[in-house]
């Protein structure tokens, strides 16, 4: 565990920040049993369901827990929460943190099972996390297996104002822009929630367009490519036109891929516009106004000059959302944002942008 002494003279530029991507983990299968209805509780036990940890985030892989944040497994909710408070919330004085729970609900093939476990998970998050720490907010986990069910779950959970976003995995069964998924966007927009797309896969397809890789490292790497293809899909399928107030947050994507990707997309749009005539403005404009990215991992070298140039290439101070990606091992020490981000940009990224992106944060977050 980390040194608990927070009274020293550490630089603390992040007071009041909103951490937009914090991972919480279901300690073991049985943690959700109290939240399942009788039938699914029985199924879990009688069929011997295992934990639904996904291969996208092997718990023991170094990249998935910063060494000084790593807890002995299975880590109880209490231990995880305490670590979060000590290492982040209290230490830096964050005003809020948004929890994303990446449990393999979406990987199940049965729509009904996916739905029941998603419900249990959301109730578990509300009861065991949000009730115990007023600074926490959470994303609604949805059964992507069936967009209608997912929309129902959004409407059910959204009545709890502490849920501030809808959570999807970046790799589903079909590209996320397809009309198949539109009920999800409709519900999210109706509830005033951004859709957070997070690294992760339903594993209906290999994680790359070129087949199954040998190493976890490539699986992890490929998540960044997946965001690129999904952003293309969302734009070209016309999601942003059909849902004019919808915002999309890309979480744990890496950031540095964005500018060259947009250059390419704008260029192809010029030649292929007639294929998707509902895309009426350059894709980069759509992205700048409607898409946000969380800042860890950032995927740049430590050189502040590179970061500065990259921010210039992004061309907007409004696109980035502050995130620690706790407990994943994205950075060491206290450098929550890469060197090269100016104080003014920090203010945008850590506070103004999250508050603008998540309207519900304004309710009850300590200024």
């Amino acid at each position, binding site marked *: 565990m980390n040194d608990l002494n927070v009274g020293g003279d550490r630089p603390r530029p992040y007071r009041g920040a909103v951490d937009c991507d914090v991972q919480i983990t279901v300690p073991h299968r049985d943690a959700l049993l109290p939240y399942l209805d009788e039938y699914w509780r029985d199924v879990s036990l009688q069929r011997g369901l295992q934990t639904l940890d996904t291969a996208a985030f092997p718990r023991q892989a170094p990249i998935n827990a910063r060494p000084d944040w790593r807890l002995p497994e299975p880590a109880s909710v209490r231990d995880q929460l305490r670590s979060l408070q000590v290492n982040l919330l209290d230490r830096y004085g964050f005003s809020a943190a948004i929890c994303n729970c990446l449990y393999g609900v979406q990987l199940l093939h049965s729509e009904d099972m996916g739905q029941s476990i998603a419900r249990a998970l959301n109730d578990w998050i509300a009861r065991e996390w949000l009730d115990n720490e007023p600074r926490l907010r959470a994303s609604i986990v949805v059964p992507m297996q069936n967009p209608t069910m997912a929309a129902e779950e959004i409407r059910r959970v959204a009545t709890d104002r502490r849920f501030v976003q809808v959570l999807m995995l970046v790799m589903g069964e079909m590209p996320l822009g397809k009309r198949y998924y539109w009920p999800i966007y409709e519900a999210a927009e109706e509830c005033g929630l951004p859709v957070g797309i997070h690294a992760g896969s339903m594993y209906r397809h290999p994680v790359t367009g070129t087949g199954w890789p040998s190493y976890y490292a490539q699986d992890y790497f490929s998540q960044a490519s997946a965001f690129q293809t999904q952003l293309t899909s969302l734009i070209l399928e016309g999601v942003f036109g059909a849902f004019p107030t919808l915002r999309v947050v890309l979480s744990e994507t890496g950031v540095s891929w964005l500018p060259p990707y947009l250059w390419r997309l704008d260029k192809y749009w010029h*030649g292929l516009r007639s294929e998707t005539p509902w895309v009426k403005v350059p894709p980069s404009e759509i992205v700048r106004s409607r898409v946000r990215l969380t800042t860890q991992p950032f995927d740049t070298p430590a050189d502040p000059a590179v970061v500065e140039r990259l921010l210039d290439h992004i061309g907007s101070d409004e696109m980035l959302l502050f995130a620690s990606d706790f407990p994943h091992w994205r950075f060491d020490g206290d450098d929550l944002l890469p060197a090269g981000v100016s104080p003014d940009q920090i203010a945008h990224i850590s506070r103004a942008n999250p508050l603008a992106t998540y309207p519900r944060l304004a309710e009850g977050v300590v200024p």
Partner: protein
Amino acid sequence: MAYHVVAAIEDMPPGSRRVIEVNGRAVAVFNVEGEFYALLNRCPHQGADLCNGLLTVAVTSTEPGIYDFDPSRNVIRCPWHAWEFDVRTGKSWCEPNRVKVRSFKTEVRSGKLIEGPYVAETFPVKTDGTYVLVEA
């Protein structure tokens, strides 16, 4: 500026096009269903000859899945990168009003302002009953 004779009208039936040289510049002239239009024969993007492009329709849409095909919205689609330009105005269908002065020079040529980076230069065309005339 003066009008230049391009062709006899009967030599340019509807659907035809030809390239003429006016003051050292190549100009593509199109007869679109009896209306004549002239564009600088040079795509503002990477310089392809627009006269080799496809004269077609700019499809529009009110929502995804709807393709609104109005044959009066003629565009020339560049033979290389398929960028679309309104045959009347020369404006890029994608970004008609984009003038990004920060990184692109605008320039004045033959007394005519070229609007922003992606506008194909157009020329007035008229007919006098016998000939097609382009002003340049």
